């Protein structure tokens, strides 16, 4: 919790991840046209790309919710062919259980001490005191933060985040960035973050990928020191410009 080393710690819980010329078509629509990708354990990868470009599709393939039309996804040395117990996915839509309270949603897996863990996570995402509300009364951003809390308490081998901050205002977003970064640094889960905000990608990730027309159009490492502050590092602006050009 107090550890803020910049070096990726190799002793974390993350698993390595590989996509091997993965394609995925829906009917005649070729969404992924051969994506090859190697993510070492504990790396924080961000993917940006146009709307409808296949970002969510990639995450679903990694989570084992969907199977590639051809090619394979390999997690920790094993080919994915069904649900992956070591993978957690924050869905683009919050997917809260309407019949569970906020805290019940965060601790949906009911691990040991789930109540304390969930309460702490809710405090982290700024929703202390809303534990016993039904999800239906939450605002859009609050729902997204509950989903974030749920994803973060799970401490998985691979964490997939599908636009987790899309509905948040600038300040809340910054807090959530810090939270995510901190937890990642503590646990070193292999993380894929999908975002439409290039600045966010550059601020958080070790490596940014641009997905365009079914291919990885750009694969760029970000070796800026952490914690990063936007607008301060001139290199950051340069990287952002390069990414934006590729999207």
């Amino acid at each position, binding site marked *: 919790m107090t550890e803020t080393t910049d070096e990726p710690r190799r002793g974390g819980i993350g698993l390595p991840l590989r996509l091997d010329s993965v394609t995925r078509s829906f009917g005649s629509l070729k969404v992924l046209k051969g994506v090859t990708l190697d993510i070492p354990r504990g790396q924080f990868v961000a993917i940006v790309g146009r709307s409808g470009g296949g970002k969510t599709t990639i995450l679903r393939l990694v989570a084992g*919710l969907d199977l590639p039309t051809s090619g394979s996804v390999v997690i920790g040395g094993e080919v994915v062919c069904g649900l992956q117990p070591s993978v*957690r*996915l924050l*869905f683009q839509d919050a997917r809260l*259980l309407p*019949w*569970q309270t906020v805290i019940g949603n965060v601790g*949906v*897996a*009911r691990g040991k001490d789930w109540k304390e863990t969930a309460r702490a996570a809710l405090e982290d995402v700024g929703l202390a005191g809303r534990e016993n509300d039904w999800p239906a009364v939450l605002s859009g951003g609050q729902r997204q933060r509950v989903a974030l809390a749920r994803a973060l308490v799970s401490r998985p081998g691979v964490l997939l985040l599908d636009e987790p901050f899309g509905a948040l205002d600038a300040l809340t977003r910054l807090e959530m960035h810090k939270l995510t970064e901190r937890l990642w640094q503590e646990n070193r889960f292999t993380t894929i973050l999908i975002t439409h905000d290039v600045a966010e990608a550059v601020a958080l990730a070790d490596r940014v990928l641009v997905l365009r027309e079914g291919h990885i159009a750009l694969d760029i490492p970000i070796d800026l020191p952490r914690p990063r502050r936007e607008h301060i590092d001139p290199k950051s602006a340069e990287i952002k410009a390069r990414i934006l050009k590729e999207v």
Partner: protein
Amino acid sequence: MRQGFLSRVGTSLAPWALPVLLVVAWEIACNAGIVSQRVLPAPSQVAAAFWAAIWDGTLFEHVGISAQRALQGLMIGGGAGFFLGVLCGVLRPAEVLIDSSLQMLRNVPHLAMIPLVIIWFGIDEEAKVFLVAIGVMFPMYLNTYHGIRTVDKGLIEMAKVYGLGPFALFRRVILPGAMSSVMVGLRYALGIMWLTLIVAETISASSGIGYMTMNAREFLQTDVVVLGILIYALLGKLADVLTRALERRLLSWHPAYQVKGRTA
């Protein structure tokens, strides 16, 4: 506050408006001689029969015996229907194998089945309980199956991704998602439960509300027949009240079941 109280009273009385109106119209029709009292006795006569039956204790005995059969049947049949609904809703092979057979079996009238039931279960309680069980099984099955089938797939995906095992998935996602439909099944089953008894109690019974009614029918005691009908209706109302209470408890999260859900 005052207003709230009055409107609350109004709301809780309104459901009785129609039945009360009907009874009044009926009494008037009887007294005016529009319907022969021997054919359709006046409410006052039925009330007299009601008092008499309460007084000598037979009514409670009949209702008590029937209730026992009904509840046993409900447990067994409702349980089986729920179980099969879950099975078919969750496992595709089970659905392929079982659903079709159940749809066929469901269509067999109890009256026609009685000879077979007697062969299997004799003419004692088992046979009656079995008929009730068969009767309540199907609405429970159909609605459970439907409820489970239509649970939001997105939520199921979510739960699986978050590592819920089959049991937890069922307990915390599928069951609550299907619950409002299961409740419809239960509502229906609670009705069918009493309805089946009238058939079941033609198998060698000497007590029970179905027996009471059918027996009175044989002897053309129309006041008792109508009394029987009214008791069925009241039991239906009771079942309805119970299910509503249960719905309010189990579905408190559901916007459609919140008491003030519609007024917001």
